[in-house]
């Protein structure tokens, strides 16, 4: 999570980085969404992963996976999941659910 761009030194990564680069044709980007029970919990989760060197982004959960409506998720790359789970277990943060996307807009829950 970025921390620059304001007098308070606080600014989210999307401000720093701008839009994500567009995907190459025929090269679907695989990533995981760690669904969290609250925005603050998502921020804690992201902060813990960032401290361990895993790039994250906090975002509002897609409607199709948001459960009771309106939740936040932490996005991580496909290769980061094993490390991320280990780190989260170590710091006592438990994900609510985890989804994987194939880049075509669909999400599939991952059994933990």
């Amino acid at each position, binding site marked *: *999570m970025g921390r620059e761009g304001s007098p308070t030194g606080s600014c989210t990564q999307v401000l720093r980085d701008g839009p994500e680069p567009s995907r190459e044709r025929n090269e679907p980007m695989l990533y995981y969404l760690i669904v969290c029970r609250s925005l603050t919990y998502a921020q*804690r989760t992201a902060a813990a992963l960032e401290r361990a060197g895993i790039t994250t982004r906090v975002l509002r959960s897609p409607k199709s996976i948001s459960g009771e409506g*309106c939740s936040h998720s932490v996005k991580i790359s496909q290769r980061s999941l094993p490390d991320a789970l280990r780190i989260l277990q170590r710091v006592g943060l438990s994900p609510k659910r985890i989804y994987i996307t194939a880049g075509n807009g669909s999400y599939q829950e991952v059994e933990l």
Partner: protein
Amino acid sequence: MIYLDSAATTLQKPASVARAAAWAINHLASPGRGGHRPAMAAADTAFACREEAAALFHVSEPERVVFTFNATHGLNIALHTLVKPGSRVVISGYEHNAVTRPLHAIPDVEIRVARSPLFDRAAALEAFRQALDQGADVAVCTHVSNVFGFILPVEEIAALCRDRAVPLIVDASQSAGCLPLDFEALGAAFAAMPGHKGLYGPQGTGLLLCGMEPDPLLAGGTGSESRLQSMPAFLPDRLEAGTHNIAGIAGLLEGLRFVRRRGVENIAAQESLLARRLGEGLREIPGSQVFLAQDPMDQSGVVSFQLEGWDCEALGEVLGKRGFALRAGLHCAPLAHETAGTLEQGTVRAGLSVFNTHREVEQFLRTLGRLAERGEDPA
């Protein structure tokens, strides 16, 4: 104007506080209410503020730091959660109306006041012990009297409460940012504090530290679990219905950073030194009655006094005209005045902050000394 009313609100703040609040008005939207940049930037600011407060007050998880409008709001949430009709509540003899009025609004509450003499920490502890041993459902204790600066033995009182499994609510209005406060070590149910006093944030900000699951005082939108018609079960959402005061939170974040950079122990030492000089100087003024602890460790940067022949409000008024901002009267704490025996006369109160100087204190003492010599309102 020499400002000596920081027990009400600190007026001199670090410059970064106003800068951050002003910037936030035009750049930060509503945390949790959108995925766009201004909303996410607001979320980052709110989270940074929770983390900063959690580090300062030793709170295990940042979501246990809840934003409130002020300390009164936080105390109302805590009391609403723990005190029910018929509850037996032990309170210190130095509580503010922010505690006593909500308690009186709940039917059939037995309020047991653990009275003790001013600046007598051992007596305060013993009074709590006796009151708790009669059976209690909840205890409430201010960390520091807002009228007299008396530092109550809140750590020891918390231990008594833990031993008896009585949940404790700490009113940290006068201590947050001015004295060390370890929430985890206290094991308290809640601690409420304003953001605009010793934490140097803007007015309209406050924090409630939660050691247990609270009942919400307000219901409404939280940006989470929107399909449900009950408030979320998790913190901080459970207590934060409606749009946040994000400009205030941005300012409070800078206030918290200032306090942590400066160091609470250093702030406490500086304010104590100023208070001691002020109190001793006041004692030398003929006709003055000063409420000063024998041991400086028993008093914060708040000093109350009276001047013979002067109505306290009239004296506050004259001092205001001479360029000194102090608060006179009962300070919304009639119970504290009753305990100290000053309910009928009230007092004039000086509340110091880290921005006050020895020079300001000396200037104030000279002015008050001249007023005392004349013996009447010269205005």
